[in-house]
């Protein structure tokens, strides 16, 4: 029974996901081509690296969000939890003087803990994900301000911290190939996320819960426990994003982060993951995040007025989701 549910969920998903990825990837290539032709300043190594760097933080947030969205849930707290993670890292490293690696682990655990608490509220208390994570969003925002005393926490005493995002291991190995570590970490996180989602039991249960929670529960899967695990994973990714952000800015900015959850969700949705659950890929999310930042960057390079940039991004989200709906209607 359990196996049939799982097999059904995975096979159904595998057939369609390939096409959606191709579609998203094609859009990305077209966008890059379009901007390259439209402006001579677009297709330059430094600008392309800039795009990747600006994708890293939202991208990692989106990776984490993919997990909960595949369960049919949502996590609205990722933006401010990310901020809380960077503030906690700042507290550990700058205020308490802990070694940098310990501070980083502390920051990651903060994220995992927040995710776990959201998961507990959802799975044990039966609070809908939207509300539970909305509450967490506010709790994390408030705590970040309280703990930091509303002031940015700087990492100026520990120059190595800045290297996490801004340094370039690749550049040190291959001269001239100065891709910042943040980009590397984003892609590594994507690979780990992809393996987790498509090759492990967590991923399989994730899809099963998203496709049909009741059937999954009836076939003997401890749905509650797995949900907590999945929200914890999202929290862990959020922690990674928090470290990347803090390192990029060389400071933890306590008032940052509101609204980032929506950008992350947009990236996930553009990447073909369905908000109703049971369907989605990590590679799709990576492409979705890249589409968002290529669009923003390209429109800026073209000096499109800022007001219009937002309008364009809005249309892209609308069309991407509509494409998804049409596809599902056809499949049904």
């Amino acid at each position, binding site marked *: 029974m359990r196996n049939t549910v799982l097999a059904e969920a995975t096979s159904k998903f595998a057939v369609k996901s390939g*096409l959606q990825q191709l*579609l998203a990837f*094609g*859009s990305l290539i*077209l*966008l890059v081509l*379009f901007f390259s032709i*439209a402006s*001579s*300043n677009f297709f*330059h190594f*430094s*600008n392309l690296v*800039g795009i990747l*760097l*600006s994708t890293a*933080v939202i991208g990692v947030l989106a990776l984490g969000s993919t997990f909960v969205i595949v369960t049919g849930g949502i996590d609205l707290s990722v933006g401010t939890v990310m901020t809380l993670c960077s503030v906690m890292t700042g507290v550990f490293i700058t205020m308490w003087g802990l070694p940098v690696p310990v501070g980083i682990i502390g920051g990651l655990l903060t994220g995992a803990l927040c995710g776990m608490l959201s998961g507990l509220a959802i799975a044990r208390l039966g609070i809908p994900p939207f509300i539970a994570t909305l509450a967490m969003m506010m709790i994390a925002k408030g705590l970040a301000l309280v703990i930091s005393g*509303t*002031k*940015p926490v*700087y990492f*100026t005493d520990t120059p190595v911290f800045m290297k996490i995002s*801004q340094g370039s291991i690749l550049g040190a190995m291959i001269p001239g190939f100065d891709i910042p570590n943040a980009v590397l970490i984003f892609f590594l996180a994507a690979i780990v996320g992809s393996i987790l989602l498509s090759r492990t039991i967590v991923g399989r249960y994730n899809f099963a819960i998203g496709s049909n929670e009741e059937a999954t529960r009836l076939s003997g899967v401890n749905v509650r426990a797995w949900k907590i695990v999945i929200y914890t994973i999202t929290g862990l990714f959020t922690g990674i994003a928090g470290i990347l*952000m803090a390192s*990029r*800015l*060389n*400071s933890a*900015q306590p*008032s*940052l982060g*509101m609204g980032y959850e929506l950008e992350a969700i947009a990236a996930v949705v553009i990447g073909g993951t369905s908000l109703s659950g049971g369907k989605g890929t990590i590679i799709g999310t990576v492409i979705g995040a890249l589409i968002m930042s290529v*669009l*923003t*960057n*390209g*429109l*800026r*390079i*073209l*000096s*499109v*007025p*800022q007001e*219009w*940039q937002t*309008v*364009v991004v809005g*249309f*892209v989200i609308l*069309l*991407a989701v*509509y*494409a998804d709906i*049409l*596809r599902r209607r*056809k499949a049904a």
Partner: protein
Amino acid sequence: MRKSLLLLLFVVVMVISACGGGNGNGSANGGNDPSPSVSPSDSASSEPAPSSSDTPAEKMYIPLVSKGFQHQFWQAVKSGAEKAASELGVEITFEGPETESQVDKQLEMLQVALDKKPTAIGFAALDSQASIPLLQRAKDAGIPVIAFDSGVDSDIPVSLVTTDNISAAGMAADKMAELIGGEGEVAVIAHDQTSRTGIDRRDGFVNRIKEQYPNITIVDIQYGGGDHLKSTDLAKAIMQAHPNLKGFFGTNEGSAIGVINAVTEMKMEGKLTVIGYDSGKAQIDAIKNGLMAGAISQNPVGIGYETVKAAVAAAKGETVQPVIDSGFVWYDASNIDSEEVKAVIYE
């Protein structure tokens, strides 16, 4: 079906970016100013831009990365920058993040601006340190940086165009003392306790009162984040707690409007002396109908103007002052219609 949808998506993106792009490039100044672009013919006076891209004899290009773009204050800075741009025959762009907490978004804007190979760059830092690696890149590429509104903890910017907020808030304190007769209780609603402007305006006011007016006590200082509603609630709470309060100072537009709202809601019109900062329609109306005694205005148009002027001078290799004071004025019902005040306030 899928393909046609995808196609539709691209048509929309391209159409919008095409119209948008036309808007941005056509009139060098973009936005709501429909004036035709400046004639590029006076290239004799301006040297060819050293780092301009493909087309030769291109106009100087100076992007301004601001703290915001939708607040009226920043729109006024923008209009000043556009004025200088058309006078000096240079091309500018003006952008900033949606809220003043988005330090990372601002860095991305700065990075894109640098990638467009500008002649010089104007930058109003949201965080005094985060931008330093990028500014170093600008310096290495020989692009002069002019800081405006707020400086950075670095000597890379060749100049800082700003308001002397400490003196300006000191003047607000003098006016307050004069209006309440040199004694009594006053309170402050500030916009925040972390930014340079927040700190300077609060301290400028508080220190002047302490030094010069021993009979005036500051009973409370609260921070409303420049949010109208939050500032209103804070001001009302302070008025409840201190029934003998004689005066209120709001350190920016949102804070000042909050105080005015509180006074109206508590039906205390005429019983409190309210002094504001910056302008905007609500403050101007409040001054005209007597709710507000007066306000300090920075000169946002001047900030934008001086920034572009300094950027052009720096790009030509001329010397620029390390700090350019863009000035401030006190305005009240008596001088609000004068030319001097009209030039700096905005609705």
